[in-house]
């Protein structure tokens, strides 16, 4: 079971005064009728207070959601597909990731996109053991397992076993290189391009590059009927 479980507390208080202040609509899921936990309520209250205090605006929040929605693994897949087909792009990507992904309109902000390449002898695997740093702009939010204490604690010491738990069996003769990203570098793995993809378009190539491949815990697969 994912140990990142959520505490659920019942909050039933007497009605206090009406909240008649500026009250931006809460982000909702129409079919979610579960009781909110303490931290769901907390982040809503924090947002409302910060807006009222003029620290942030509702518009900033709204635009922030749009930015967050633009962070998707499909972006990373496009980058990988281009690196696979365009050697000069790959060279630029490896030398200066931020500059190269600007071709796609992607900005990394304060962090430095650092791209590492799998070879036929080396598999790169990314982790942040201290918290869960992750290249969100090109991969979206990190998956539950990446954020888990299990992954953070064990992938640096038994990477092969951890990859197996995530569904990937690596041959014994592959060297595993784990990257613990603890500073302002954010890592992206270019997986090896499968031989069976000769002549494929960038779009078709991107379709086999999953998020897990770009973290380094999986490798792209070409299905028999593709």
């Amino acid at each position, binding site marked *: 079971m994912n140990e990142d479980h959520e505490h659920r507390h019942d909050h039933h208080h007497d009605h206090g005064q009406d909240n008649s202040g500026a009250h931006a609509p809460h982000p909702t899921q129409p079919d979610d009728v579960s009781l909110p936990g303490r931290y769901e309520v907390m982040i809503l209250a924090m947002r409302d207070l910060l807006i009222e205090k003029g620290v942030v605006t509702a518009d900033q929040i709204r635009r922030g959601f749009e930015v967050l929605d633009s962070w998707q693994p499909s972006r990373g897949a496009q980058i990988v597909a281009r690196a696979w087909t365009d050697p000069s792009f790959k060279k630029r990507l490896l030398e200066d990731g931020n500059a190269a992904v600007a071709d796609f309109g992607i900005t990394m902000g304060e962090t430095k996109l*650092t791209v590492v390449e799998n070879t036929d002898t080396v598999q790169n695997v990314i982790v942040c*053991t201290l918290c869960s740093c992750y290249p969100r702009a090109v991969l979206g939010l990190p998956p539950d397992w990446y954020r888990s204490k299990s992954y953070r604690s064990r992938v640096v*010491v038994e990477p092969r076993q951890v990859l197996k738990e995530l569904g990937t069996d690596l041959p014994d003769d592959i060297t*595993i290189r*784990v990257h613990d990203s603890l*500073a*302002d570098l954010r890592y992206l793995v270019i997986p090896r391009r499968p031989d069976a993809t000769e002549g494929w378009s960038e779009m078709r190539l991107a379709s086999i590059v999953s998020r897990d491949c770009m973290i380094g815990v999986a490798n792209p697969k070409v299905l028999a009927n593709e």
Partner: protein
Amino acid sequence: MTPRLAPGDRVQVVLTNPPGHRRTPFYIRGKQGVIERACGEFANPEELGHGFDGLPKKQLYRVRFRQKDLWANYRGGEYDTVDVDVYEHWLTPLPVLAGR
């Protein structure tokens, strides 16, 4: 500023467990590794974490550790490594090995 350490330089991570915000993980403290590359200068997160400006900037290095040097019972590949982003003030250069 030119980095003081170059790729291939052997280094030892300072063995200390100070309080406060640190980004050098426990598992590499006191261990030996090799500079893989210099990564540029950044404001010191140990100071930023406590509200200071973190200046002057410090050089960040990617340090490569052999897994077998980190863990007594490592059961994986002979050449498996962990690369960790470490700030310069946590690294002590080691003497060049004879014959290099």
